[in-house]
């Protein structure tokens, strides 16, 4: 089988953009309906998230389209109008289409907690069904994948919202909220790790060995995950102190966010690489 290495970057960025959009919507849900915090400039934020998500869809479809064109060689031609059947006549395209509609719908559902939650779950389902997990063709893998990315996105989105609150609106997110977030997000993060582990266990028997590039990226992802966990552990130590040092906390938060962004990019890149 010939390797298809082109358009890795747009495929990776497309998936990362879509994940960021859903993660931040999850963070907004937490913020509004769990912590009951006010959110300045909400509509502007939602609008930008919708644009980021749609850009992700466009990049992903673009990546697939050009992969097909590359695969065609000289004799099998692919025309621009083939983007329509790609969108409408493949399950991959249809899930991106539904994802886009749900994303636009988020502008309305933001004011209704239950509908917003359903909207987010719908988008997570679409992201599952047009990912590698769809290949497995069994319900257990789909559910594991959904739980895994839901947990990861909730953690990521919550972290972004805490960052925004601390740096853009001083005084909005204080020690009790940080403590509550920390308490909520620890089991969520651990569930994300555990479901990731279970997905490995189910698939490891099917794949013997890894390619050098893939293995190296897995190692990088591991390092980043460890760095995130060390930062989070340090932040948890700072929280219960009576004389809460906000400056030190914010520095640690920035560092954790930096590693979290790199982790997201590494994970998105792994979805584009063949492991063998």
């Amino acid at each position: 089988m010939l390797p298809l290495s082109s358009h890795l970057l747009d495929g990776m960025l497309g998936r990362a953009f879509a994940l960021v959009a859903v993660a931040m919507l999850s963070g907004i849900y937490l913020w509004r309906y769990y912590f009951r915090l006010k959110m300045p400039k909400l509509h502007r934020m939602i609008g930008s998230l919708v644009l980021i998500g749609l850009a992700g869809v466009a990049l992903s479809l673009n990546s697939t389209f050009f992969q097909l064109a590359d695969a065609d060689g000289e004799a099998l031609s692919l025309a621009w109008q083939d983007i329509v059947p790609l969108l409408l006549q493949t399950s991959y395209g249809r899930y991106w289409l539904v994802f886009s509609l749900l994303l636009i719908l988020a502008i309305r559902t933001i004011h209704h907690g239950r509908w917003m939650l359903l909207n987010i779950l719908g988008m997570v389902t679409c992201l599952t069904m047009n990912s590698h997990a769809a290949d497995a063709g069994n319900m257990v893998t789909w559910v594991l994948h959904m739980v895994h990315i839901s947990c990861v996105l909730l953690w990521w989105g919550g972290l972004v919202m805490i960052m925004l609150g601390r740096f853009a609106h001083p005084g909005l997110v204080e020690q009790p909220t940080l403590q509550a977030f920390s308490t909520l997000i620890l089991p969520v993060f651990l569930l994300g790790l555990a479901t990731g582990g279970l997905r490995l266990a189910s698939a490891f028997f099917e794949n013997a060995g890894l390619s050098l590039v893939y293995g190296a990226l897995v190692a990088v992802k591991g390092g980043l995950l460890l760095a995130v966990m060390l930062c989070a552990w340090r932040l948890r130590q700072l929280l219960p102190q009576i004389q809460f040092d906000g400056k030190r906390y914010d520095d640690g938060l920035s560092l954790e966010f930096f590693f979290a962004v790199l982790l997201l990019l590494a994970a998105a890149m792994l979805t584009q690489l063949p492991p063998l």
Partner: protein
Amino acid sequence: MVRLWWCMCLIGLSLFSSVAECHTRLISSNPARDQVLGHSPGHLTLTFSAPVESEFSRIELVKEKDQAWQVLKVRVDGKTVHGDLPKLLPGTYVVRWRVLARDGHAQRGQFRFELR
């Protein structure tokens, strides 16, 4: 120490979770790669590790040293792609294929078989 150990195990497991995200690959074909046949097969079958999209699945055939690739009529049935073959004359044939996996990744490949 025990807690730290479990944490490290969990991290290690989750690190490799992307292994689960394997690309669809060709498992087998009929005729098989480099197979020598005694008679013209009626059709060609490609079996993949996961279901593929029926749209954009293509199989082409050329007799070695000929120029024109012949596009086969294909039918997708889950993980299997069938291509109808015309009556073949003795010689070496090259098959090239392209499929679109449900995760949006295009895969391609080629192989030969011989008819005596």
